[in-house]
C-alpha cells in the first residue's frame, strides 16, 4: 500500500484487572486481521459501487444547497418474521411532489405471507425491501414482487407507460396490459433496458448493475447500455447483461471463458452446458469432510435439481434454488456445497467477483472444517486461473495453508505458491 496512514489520536486504554482486562488485552494484541485478498476485493468493490452510484451524483459544491429530489421510501423489515410489528418506514429527502406524478400504484410489505404494511406508490419514489420482507406492488396493469434486498425506483407511472429502475436485487414482473401495443413497461438497470410488451419474467441485478433476465411467458427485449445490438429473450430463455466491460483482469477472464465456451461449442451441437473447472472440482473433492454428515433425500434431490439446471445453462434459476439451501438451517456441509455450486455457476458465467464472494462465504461458514478449507483453496485457484491476480492468489493459498497446513490440498497449494514465484515454497520440490 502506498498511502500514508491517517493521523490518529494515540489512545491509552484503561488497565483493568481481572477477566475483562485479560479479554481487552487479548483483543488489543490480536486485532482482527484484514488480509490482502480481502482488502483488494473490498477496494475494487467499493470503487465499482461508487461508480455505479455516480449516475445520480451532483457536484460536491452543490451538495450543501441541493438535496436529491427523488423521494426515497425505505421499507425495511427489522428482526425476524416474529418481529413483524417492528417495521421502520422512513421518508427521506425532499417530499415535494413532482407535477407529473400520478398515484396509480399500491404496495404491500409482506413477511412470511402476512401483510404488515401498505401504502401508495407514486412517481419518483424508491422502494427498498429489508432483510426479511418482500414487497408486492400493484400497478393495475402490472404486478411486481420485490425480493429481499431489492431497490426499485418508479420513474414513470402513467397509463400508457410504466418506467422503473431496478437499482439492485430481484424483481418478479407480471405485466398484462389491457390494450396490447398501447401500454408499455420498461425497466432500466445498470446494464441496459428491458422492454416489455406483455409477459412474465424475473430480473436479477447485482450491486454492479449486471443483469440477468429469466422469461417465463412472452418475449422481452434487452437494450444493452454498451450499445450492443438489442436482443430478444423468449419464454424459457434467460440472458445475462454486463454493466460494463470491467477492468483488465475481468476482460481477460471473460476472454478466457469465451475461448473455453467456443471450444465447447465446437465440440458439441448442444447448447453450451454448465462446465465448472473439472480439474478444480476433482482436486477439491480429494479432501473429505470431517463432518461425515449424510444428506437427507430431500437435500440430495434439491442439490441434484440445481445441478441439472446448471447443466441446462439456467444459472439464475439454479442459483436461486442454491441460495435457498445455503440460507436454510440444513447442516453446514450442505450449505457449503450449495455455495460452492453458486461459485462455480458464477465462474462459468465469467463473474469472478461473485464467484469469489460465494467461495469466501463457503469458507467462512465452515472455517475449521475441510469443506471450508476446500472452498478457501477453490478461491485461490479462481484468483490464479481466472482473475490472473497473482498477488491475491498467493495470499489466498497462504491463507489456506495457515488454516490447513496438513490439509489434503496442502501440496497443491505449495506447488501453486512456488509457481507464483514464492521461492520459499519451492524447497520441497
Amino acid at each position, binding site marked *: 500500500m502506498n498511502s500514508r496512514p491517517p493521523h490518529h489520536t494515540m489512545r491509552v486504554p484503561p488497565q483493568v484487572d481481572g477477566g475483562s482486562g485479560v479479554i481487552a488485552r487479548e483483543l488489543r494484541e490480536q486485532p482482527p486481521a484484514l488480509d490482502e485478498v480481502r482488502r483488494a476485493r473490498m477496494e475494487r468493490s467499493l470503487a465499482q459501487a461508487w461508480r455505479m452510484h455516480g449516475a445520480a451524483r451532483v457536484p460536491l459544491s452543490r451538495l450543501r444547497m441541493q438535496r436529491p429530489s427523488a423521494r426515497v421510501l425505505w421499507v425495511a423489515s427489522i428482526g425476524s418474521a416474529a418481529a413483524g410489528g417492528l417495521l421502520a418506514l422512513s421518508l427521506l429527502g425532499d417530499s415535494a411532489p413532482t407535477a407529473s406524478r400520478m398515484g396509480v400504484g399500491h404496495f404491500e410489505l409482506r413477511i412470511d405471507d402476512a401483510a404488515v404494511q401498505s401504502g401508495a406508490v407514486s412517481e419518483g419514489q424508491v422502494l427498498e425491501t429489508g432483510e426479511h420482507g418482500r414487497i408486492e406492488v400493484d400497478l393495475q396493469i402490472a404486478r411486481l414482487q420485490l425480493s429481499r434486498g431489492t431497490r426499485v425506483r418508479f420513474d414513470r407511472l402513467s397509463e400508457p407507460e410504466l418506467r422503473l429502475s431496478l437499482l439492485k436485487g430481484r424483481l418478479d414482473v407480471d405485466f398484462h396490459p389491457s390494450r396490447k401495443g398501447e401500454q408499455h413497461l420498461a425497466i432500466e438497470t445498470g446494464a441496459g433496458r428491458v422492454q416489455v410488451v406483455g409477459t412474465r419474467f424475473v430480473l436479477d441485478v447485482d450491486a454492479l448493475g449486471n443483469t440477468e433476465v429469466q422469461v417465463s411467458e412472452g418475449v422481452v427485449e434487452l437494450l444493452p447500455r454498451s450499445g450492443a445490438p438489442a436482443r430478444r429473450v423468449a419464454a424459457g430463455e434467460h440472458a445475462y447483461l454486463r454493466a460494463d466491460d470491467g477492468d483488465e483482469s475481468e476482460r481477460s477472464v471473460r476472454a478466457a471463458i469465451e475461448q473455453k465456451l467456443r471450444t465447447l461449442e465446437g465440440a458439441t451441437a448442444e447448447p453450451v452446458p454448465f462446465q465448472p473447472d473439472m480439474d478444480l472440482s476433482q482436486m477439491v473433492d480429494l479432501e473429505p469432510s470431517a463432518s461425515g454428515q449424510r444428506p437427507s433425500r430431500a437435500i440430495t434431490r434439491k442439490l441434484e435439481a440445481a445441478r441439472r439446471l446448471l447443466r441446462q445453462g439456467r444459472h439464475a434459476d439454479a442459483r436461486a434454488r442454491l441460495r435457498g439451501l445455503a440460507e436454510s438451517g440444513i447442516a453446514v456441509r450442505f450449505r457449503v456445497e450449495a455455495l460452492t455450486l453458486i461459485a462455480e455457476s458464477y465462474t462459468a458465467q465469467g463473474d469472478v467477483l461473485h464467484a469469489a464472494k460465494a467461495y469466501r462465504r463457503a469458507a467462512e*461458514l465452515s472455517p475449521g472444517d475441510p469443506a471450508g478449507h476446500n472452498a478457501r483453496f477453490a478461491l485461490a485457484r479462481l484468483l490464479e486461473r481466472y482473475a490472473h491476480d497473482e498477488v491475491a492468489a498467493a495470499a489466498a493459498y497462504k491463507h489456506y495453508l495457515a488454516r490447513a497446513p496438513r490439509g489434503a490440498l496442502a501440496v497443491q497449494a505449495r506447488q501453486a505458491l512456488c509457481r507464483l514465484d514464492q521461492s520459499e515454497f519451492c524447497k520441497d520440490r
Partner: protein
Amino acid sequence: MTKLQPAKAASDEERELLGRAASGDELAVRELFRTHVTRLHRQAARILGGDDPDVEDVVQQAFLAALDGAAKFDGRSSLSTWLFGITTRRALDAARSRWRRQRWNRLAESVGIGSQSMQPDQGYQLRADAESMLGKLPPEQRMVFVLHDVEGYTFAEISGMTGIGISSLHGRLMAARKRLERMTDGGEHE
C-alpha cells in the same frame, strides 16, 4: 505505552481527498479506502465478530455513506474519527439486528437444545475465546467495551460517535465487565 495527544481537526488535505472522492474521482476513492480500511475493518470486526461475513458489507456501507454524506463533514474532527464513528454506528446497527434475530437461538442454547458455534483452529484459540465471550454481550455493551477498554476512547468521544449518553455508556461498560468476569470465572454459560 503510547502518548496521549489531543484530537486533531481535519487537515485541508483530508478534506480535499474526501471532496475529490465524493465527486467521482476513483483514484481518490481508492486512496481514501487504503488509508482508512484497516482501522475501520478492525472496528467492524470487533463489534460483529472477526469471522462475520457482514463485516465487509458494513465497511463498504460506511465508506459509501461517507462519500454520499461528504458535504456533512464539517472538519471539526479528523476524517479518520468521522469515518470511525460512521463505521461504529453501522456495525452497531448490524449487531443489534443480528442480536434480535438470534434471540431464539440463544434461548435454545440456554436450555440445552441448541449447539454452540464451531470452534476454530487451535492457533486462533485465544483470540477466538475472547471474541466468543465478547459475542455473548448485547451489542451496546460489546460496543462500549471495545471502544473504551480495547481502543481507549473516552466516554465523551464514544457518546459523540454513538449519540448514547455518558451515564448510559458507563452503566453498560460496568455491566459488560461484570459479565465478562463471570464468563472467565466459568460462572456463566450462555
